[in-house]
């Protein structure tokens, strides 16, 4: 299962997949203004080229017998420190090639879209430079055949993400968000780096093959520790509880960034990490349980927050958090869930990117408005956007036959199949999450595209240019079809099997009991949303003083009842969670930054500039050191 095969043919140039965007990024970042005129074209061409290469490799890979579907492309031997020889190589197998196609495919579409979206930005070239840097790093992350390469890519995407969130750093909120993302991610990265160190200390190697072949004899406690540390890393990058808080703020970046990095690719790196480390997690039940718990908590947490956000991008970000929760939950389920988690990741890549691009298109049309209370009725002026957004919406809520339905149901089903109390709890959480998802996503659609227009007088919504709509259309096609392609007949599970192991479960029946209940939950969610946001006009100002508004609309007695019975507790819960998110978690993160800043700011005044003070503290230090030494001696 873990054997790899030496690269030949097209696989021997796998490194080009990474090198092309990297070179392009170097040209664009270092090239200065000279590249302004053609920079964006180069920026688009690079991921496209990688995509084509990836496709060819994929086709070749599929054509091989199953046992040979893991190709190790040894780039160079890297003897780093005495006693270990890190063969930095690239590994093409089912898992990595799936990611490669997602990253370069969806990435290319978003790149194309960005040509239009960033058309008026004077720094567009630089934007593409960072974008390509991101793509290269992400590709390294998924293609590396060892944890070290993964870590390098991991840090690389972190850097690119940081640069891109802060791309409009003249906005203080963007600069702060970038900093926050950076700090929170460092916590996760710390976990990952320690995990790698422990791994090396235990197994003496970094390589996937080396580690995975050594895990069988390893101490379970060590494996659990490694697993938990890896999970910490995954939580940071994938915005899982408790390290989720940076994702909502990261929406300060340009929308294509949100689409590519904070929805489709980078945030899924945590899922990749867990799936890739499957052999470790399979032997570390505690860590695996922790993974599922984190996933389940996050999927509910994100979904509830999604209900409260009026900012369209933040609502989508909350939904991303929640959907990644599903994936994490799935990969935490072990062999039964890996394939579904990854499949959901792929379909999510399509529909979430579609949703974000749609949101970007809406913002583009309404002078960068993000407040959904100032949208409404946009379906008419922007039919294409509405259609693509709508398809993606149907996919995410799990409308039967669309891609999300296949993958999400599969996860819920798999969670129930885990059995025992934990299986029931996890499955139910996922089920409830599906209902809430339907509610808040419907809310987004209803508030944005349906109902009466609430936009400002000077806003004249219009459809976006072709360079932006075509990517949306293609993504919508993906949202429809990806599910069939991946899930029918367990095709994807079989494809992935050599990497993550076979599941004994039969492929999921779309018409299972759980599937039916899920469908019902979805219908209920959509229904409530329709009641609240379609039948009733949406106030252009958030009903902050909802007590007063309820009183004013007493004639709608049923609605008032609805509100007091269903809404209010929900709102309180939501507020509580948002409060928790804003104050406690953000507070902790901001607090850490402020602590260091403040500490440093105060401490630096110790450096008074007076020689005599310096000499005094030196003498004090001497006395302390001498005393310490004498005491140590006894």
């Amino acid at each position, binding site marked *: 299962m873990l054997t790899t095969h030496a690269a030949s043919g097209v696989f021997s140039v796998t490194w080009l997949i990474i090198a092309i965007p990297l070179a392009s990024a170097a040209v664009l970042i270092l090239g200065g203004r000279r590249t302004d005129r053609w920079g964006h074209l180069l920026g688009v061409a690079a991921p496209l080229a990688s995509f084509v290469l990836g496709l060819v490799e994929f086709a070749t890979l599929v054509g091989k017998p199953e046992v040979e579907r893991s190709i190790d492309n040894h780039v160079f031997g890297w003897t780093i420190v005495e006693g270990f020889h890190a063969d930095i190589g690239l590994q093409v197998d089912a898992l990595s090639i799936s990611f490669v196609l997602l990253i370069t495919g969806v990435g290319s579409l978003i790149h194309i879209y960005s040509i239009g979206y960033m058309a008026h930005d004077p720094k567009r070239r630089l934007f593409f430079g960072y974008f390509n840097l991101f793509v290269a790093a992400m590709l390294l992350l998924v293609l590396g055949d060892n944890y070290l390469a993964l870590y390098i890519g991991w840090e690389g995407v972190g850097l690119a993400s940081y640069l891109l969130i802060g791309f409009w750093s003249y906005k203080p909120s963007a600069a702060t968000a970038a900093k926050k993302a950076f700090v929170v991610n460092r916590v996760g990265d710390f976990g990952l780096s320690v995990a790698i160190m422990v791994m090396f200390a235990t197994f003496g190697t970094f390589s996937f093959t080396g580690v995975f072949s050594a895990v069988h004899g390893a101490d379970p406690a060590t494996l659990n520790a490694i697993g938990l540390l890896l999970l910490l890393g995954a939580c940071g990058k994938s915005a899982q509880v408790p390290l989720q808080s940076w994702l909502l703020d990261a929406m300060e970046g340009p929308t294509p960034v949100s689409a590519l990095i904070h929805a489709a690719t980078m945030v899924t790196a945590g899922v990749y990490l867990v799936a890739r480390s499957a052999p470790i997690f399979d032997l570390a039940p505690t860590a695996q349980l922790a993974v599922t718990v984190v996933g389940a908590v996050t999927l509910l947490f994100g979904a509830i927050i999604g209900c409260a956000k009026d900012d369209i991008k933040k609502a989508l970000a909350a939904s991303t958090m929640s959907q990644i929760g599903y994936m994490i939950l799935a990969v935490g389920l072990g062999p039964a869930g890996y394939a579904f988690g990854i499949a959901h990741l792929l379909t999510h890549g399509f529909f979430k990117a579609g949703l974000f691009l749609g949101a970007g298109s809406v913002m583009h049309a309404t002078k960068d408005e993000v407040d959904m209370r100032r949208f409404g009725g946009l379906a008419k002026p922007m039919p294409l956007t509405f259609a693509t957004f709508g398809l993606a919406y149907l996919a995410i809520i799990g409308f039967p036959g669309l891609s999300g339905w296949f993958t999400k149901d599969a996860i819920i089903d798999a969670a129930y199949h885990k059995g025992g109390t934990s299986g029931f709890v996890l499955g139910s959480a996922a089920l409830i999450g599906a209902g809430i998802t339907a509610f808040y996503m419907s809310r987004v659609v209803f508030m944005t595209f349906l109902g009466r227009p609430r936009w400002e007088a000077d806003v004249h919504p219009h459809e976006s240019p072709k360079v932006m709509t075509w990517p949306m259309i293609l993504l919508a096609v993906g949202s429809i079809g990806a599910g069939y392609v991946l899930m029918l007949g367990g095709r994807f599970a079989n494809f992935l099997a050599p990497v993550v192991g076979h599941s004994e479960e039969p492929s999921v029946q779309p018409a299972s009991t759980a599937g039916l209940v899920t469908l019902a939950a979805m219908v209920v969610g959509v229904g409530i949303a329709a009641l609240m946001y379609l039948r009733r006009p949406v106030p252009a100002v958030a009903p902050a003083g909802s007590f007063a508004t309820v009183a004013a609309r007493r004639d709608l007695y049923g609605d008032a009842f609805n509100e007091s019975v269903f809404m209010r507790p929900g709102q309180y819960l939501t507020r509580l969670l948002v409060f928790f998110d804003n104050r406690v978690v953000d507070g902790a993160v901001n607090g850490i930054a402020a602590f260091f800043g403040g500490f440093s700011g105060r401490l630096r005044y110790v*450096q*008074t*500039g007076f*020689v005599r003070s310096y*000499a005094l503290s030196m003498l004090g230090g001497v006395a302390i050191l001498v005393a310490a030494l004498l005491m140590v001696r006894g």
Partner: protein
Amino acid sequence: MSPMFYLYLSAVLFTLGAVGVLLRRNAIVVFMCIELMLNAANLALVTFSRINGNLDGQIIAFFVMVVAAAEVVVGLAVIVAVFRTRRSASVDDVNLLKY
């Protein structure tokens, strides 16, 4: 009397020199206090030389003297250069670089 008393004396002188460095403001006096510390060390060296019964201590003291002489030249040159610029030999006045 035991030669140990020379050592105690040297410790006292050394500490007094160190204290002087911290208390005096005139750079030249600060520097003189450093010389006092070196002298105290030399006393210890000579005494140890006698206790140990070999001459290495005296040689070391000799080297310390040579080094101190060179240090004095450089140090006083630096101090005079600063004095000519600022018209002040106080170490508290060289206080632009901080924080």
